[in-house]
């Protein structure tokens, strides 16, 4: 079967997709976007977290056919997504319900929006680096997508808010403390920027 959908602001078409295939498989193996990681394949680990029509989901649990006509943002498109959000007046208040529509069909502006290379990092990505929240890096893409989405609608999260928002993302290296630091840092920087 053929699946047409938008990934990181760019129209995509995947052919010969098996009907039982997951969105994660399509992203990684058919579209060459290996940023979303494949680990548990049962929604336990969150390392495949992407935005589906703006909502954080485990890509391994979305049937490929369910993505037909939808908008997907992966970690590769996170920097562009964050930049466009900032240009639209900071989506943090949640008052920008039209944000997704605004970007629909528009090619992302980064130098390489497909791989995310060559573009400036999203604030959450920079915060993860600055706080030392990346060790082996396997869980990082899912955590970035989940943390970025939380900061979008909750700019001043408590520690409990952060823990809850990231409760579906497993990290086996860091013990989470540096990840907490990174999200606090991103929230603080976001607050300064406003």
């Amino acid at each position: 079967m053929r699946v047409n959908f938008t990934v990181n602001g760019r129209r995509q078409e995947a052919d010969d997709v098996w009907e039982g295939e997951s969105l994660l498989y399509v992203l990684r193996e058919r579209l060459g976007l290996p940023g979303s990681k494949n680990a548990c394949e049962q929604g336990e680990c969150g390392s495949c977290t992407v935005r589906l029509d703006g909502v954080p989901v485990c890509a391994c649990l979305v049937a490929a056919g369910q993505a037909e006509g939808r908008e997907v943002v992966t970690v590769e498109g996170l920097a562009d997504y964050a930049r466009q959000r900032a240009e639209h007046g900071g989506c943090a208040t949640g008052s920008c319900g039209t944000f997704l529509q605004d970007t629909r069909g528009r090619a992302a502006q980064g130098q390489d929006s497909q791989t995310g290379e060559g573009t400036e990092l999203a604030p959450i990505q920079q915060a993860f680096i600055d706080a030392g929240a990346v060790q082996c890096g396997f869980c990082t893409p899912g955590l970035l997508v989940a943390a970025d989405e939380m900061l979008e609608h909750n700019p001043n999260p408590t520690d409990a808010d952060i823990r809850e928002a990231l409760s579906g993302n497993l990290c086996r290296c860091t013990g989470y403390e540096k990840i907490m630091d990174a999200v606090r840092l991103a929230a603080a920087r976001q607050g300064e920027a406003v």
Partner: protein
Amino acid sequence: MDFLRPASWEEALAAKAEHPTAVPIAGGTDVMVEINFDHRRPGHLLDLTRVGDLYEWEAAEDSVRVGASVPYTRIMENLRAELPGLALASHTVASPQIRNRGGVGGNLGTASPAGDAHPALLAAGAEVEAESVRGSRRIPIDEFYTGVKRNALAPDELIRAVHVKKADGPQQYSKVGTRNAMVIAVCAFGLALHPRTRTVRTGIGSAAPTPIRAKAAEEFLNAALEEGGFWDNGKIITPSVAQRFAQLCSGACNPIDDVRGTASYRRHAVGVMARRTLTWTWESYRGARRLTEGAA
């Protein structure tokens, strides 16, 4: 495998009638796991995510009609006042990513004894709206679970919504697991006080082949509360009453030993949760009573 993509409820019913073995998929949080692990290879997947009205909820006079695909996240955000037990249960489901996709329809369709919504539905009182091309019917929640991962649906039926009684008193939900997220219940317990009818209802998860009510415990507590005039005098629950209630809830269980816990642990934990949720809900009832009396 065929991927069926009905654009409307009528089309979905027609597809299910034509392919009764088609597996409905909405949030995918159960079905995709089975497919990813090669535990299931259905001939047809019936994608319900394009049927918009499955994502809507609507309050009626004494119940709320929750569309089968309304995600747990929406229930937590929007139905906490009307359906506090179900909202609490929804909050214990897995993680934000899963709660953004999964809903009560899938929980009912899978009918796992460990499904988080079941104890809350049993305690509140609910009916499952099932429909096929032959017509629509409402299945009382007590008659819905027929065996381990079996339910009362006919092969051509789909779950359209669940009608949950609006809370007329405090409700609580408790779940045992190894951490606060991403946990399949070792066991779970839901309790609802119904001051209007002066009754209590319970729901037990993961401690029997199906989700169950502890009916003997309910009857004992109903009689004890009535006898002692508790609903009127608002006294604290006598410890011996709470203890007997807990024992009877434990006794209602018919659990198994498995990787998540032993049968005897489950029985014990259900008793503890029964006693705690009774205390929590009753204290909340007493508090509310005091407020109304103070106002009068």
